[in-house]
């Protein structure tokens, strides 16, 4: 899956978790840029992503996410590892 495809699939998850329908993701976005991205919704987001992409985040990754771009890279890496690349 390309980074663009991952981002496309992330957008509706962000919209669901933060209860908005106008979220446009950019790689440099952080929790400060999206209203409601607090620690509570952060966990919801992580679990939604895990379930949608079939991946698992490590304890350190959950807290260490820097921005949306980093999240996309992380998902990409996990998907590649899964499919044996």
């Amino acid at each position, binding site marked *: 899956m390309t980074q663009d495809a991952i981002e496309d699939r992330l957008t509706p998850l962000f919209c669901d978790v933060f209860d908005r329908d106008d979220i446009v993701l950019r790689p440099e976005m952080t929790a400060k840029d999206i209203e409601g991205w607090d620690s509570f919704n952060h966990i919801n987001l992580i679990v*939604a992503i895990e379930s949608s992409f079939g991946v698992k985040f*490590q304890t350190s990754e959950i807290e260490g996410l820097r921005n949306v771009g980093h999240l996309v890279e992380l998902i990409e890496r996990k998907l590649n590892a899964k499919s044996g690349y």
Partner: protein
Amino acid sequence: MDFLKLPWLPECSDWVEKLRKAATLDAEELGGELRGLATARLDFLRTSKLDRLMQREADALRLQTPAAKRLRLAVAASCTVTHLIPAIRVGALRRDLWVDVYEAPYGTYRQALMTPDSELYAFQPDVLLLIQDPWHLVSGSRSTADDAISGLRACWQLAKQHSRCTVIQQTVLPVFPDTLGNNECVYPESRAERVRRLNEGLAKAAVDDGVLLLDAATWAARTGLHSWYDPALWHSAKQETSPQVSPLYGDLVGRLLGALRGRSGKCLVLDLDNTLWGGVVGDDGWSGITLGQGNALGEAYIGFQEYALALARRGIILAICSKNDEKNARAPFERHPDMMLRLDDIACFVANWEDKATNLRRIAKMLNIGLDALVFADDNPFERNLVRQELPAVAVPELPEDPALYASTIAGGGYFEGFTVTADDVARVGQYRDNAARVAELEATTDLPAYLRNLDMELIWGTFDEAGLPRITQLVNKSNQYNLTTRRYNEAELREWTQNEEVLTYQLRLRDRLGDNGMISVIIARPKAGEPDAIEIDTWLMSCRVLGRQVETAALNLLVEHARSRGYTRLVGIFIPTEKNEMVRNHYLKLGFELHGKSPEGGAVYELPLPGYTPFDHFITVREA
């Protein structure tokens, strides 16, 4: 089977569209749509979305929900549970209940329980849900399972001391890895073993103390602990239960609250062909159906029949609803050697060619129970959808293709959630069958008084006592139709009246020539505040099984006699209308009371002057237990 996906609920392909539409409705219309939205397979994101919509209109929705369908739940936990609350509200909504939730701030549950004027008690919860994580309960190397149980009992004690709420205790998740292995049980000091012993002791303590369990430990074993509890989320957010589990968790709490409010199913209605056996009996003949040992599919159907029978043994009524010629439909019950279910186990047998919605209405009527007490099991998706559409009150579990999974699917859905098995429950199937015999005799007779006289009825009355309390509690919280005030009380509240000399309490049993009907009526009368000459009937309810048998007139004679002997001159009755108790609208008028205005809660108040009362004639022998 993946219980986390709520497989007993139907998929709804246009759910998002429906939710969007519902969001444009005003609160009144929204109220009608919400339950349908909740009764679909929902993941945790959709559950939260639905809850947000409910909360947006909370004030209006709460107002338009009758008191009997509202409930206040306090949640007190040692770990993070905020993510479970929306699903709890949705799980209750699925049982047609509106729940207001108070969540004690993180880490403060003990203080909240110990402080009489805490926010928790000020909230006046009907129910308190206690959730303690295993790290909290089994900390340090010296605290034993018994210490932990004593700690929990102290919490229950505090809650009961400062509030009238029913306590629900979550069991403890077995999250600790073992240190010894398969035989961890020989090492009581290990944390894994302490949790196991803790859950064992907890079950006994809860029964002794009248506390209900939310058995998360067993459910986590069913779903797989790894999907219930995620160590990464525990370390990041102190969640012992993953948000992914919340739809199931909320449903588990919802079914407990539903059972407390009398919303559990009472009757399992079964289709026949490809539900109880393989094949079509009308085509294949009774000897040609797939059922019985020696054939994998035939054994799977036996497994399902065994489960239905186990439900019947503990008081669930079984009925048949099948599109068949009746003679063909009955043949396997009468002749097939491998049938587990026999005609004796079935309270109501309907086989004809009419549509199933019509037949389910008929079954509810014959058994004298509400449509919402029916759970309908049918392998055919067409029939299931038809019933869901025509009779939204009937619960219709989605059955998987494989009959080997029917039983676990229906059990998983928690349609028959209960707290006790009373002697009356065990005898129930027989009672409903006896009643069918009475109905048959009654239909054959043209002389009603002669019929009633020949029944040799005996009404046995007693005041509330410890032995009767479980069944009294059950009746007070389950009866909807023949119930004048639909006031719900928990066991503790009812127990208080056993010790209060001023209150007249009655538990009534009816026996006759055809069998024992068990406890069929409960009446509570209390002195009317500020009017020393009047006593008021707080609660009067009766099982619909004994309608038209003169029980109410015999009971009134008794009540009047006792009220008079205590010097009262007026008996006051109240009728509070609900969606379901239309049948008792004129109860007091029929008994000779006169209308006397309105009660504060919108009911009608009636009065009966006691001095001139002439006892009603009836054919019942009345005696004290």
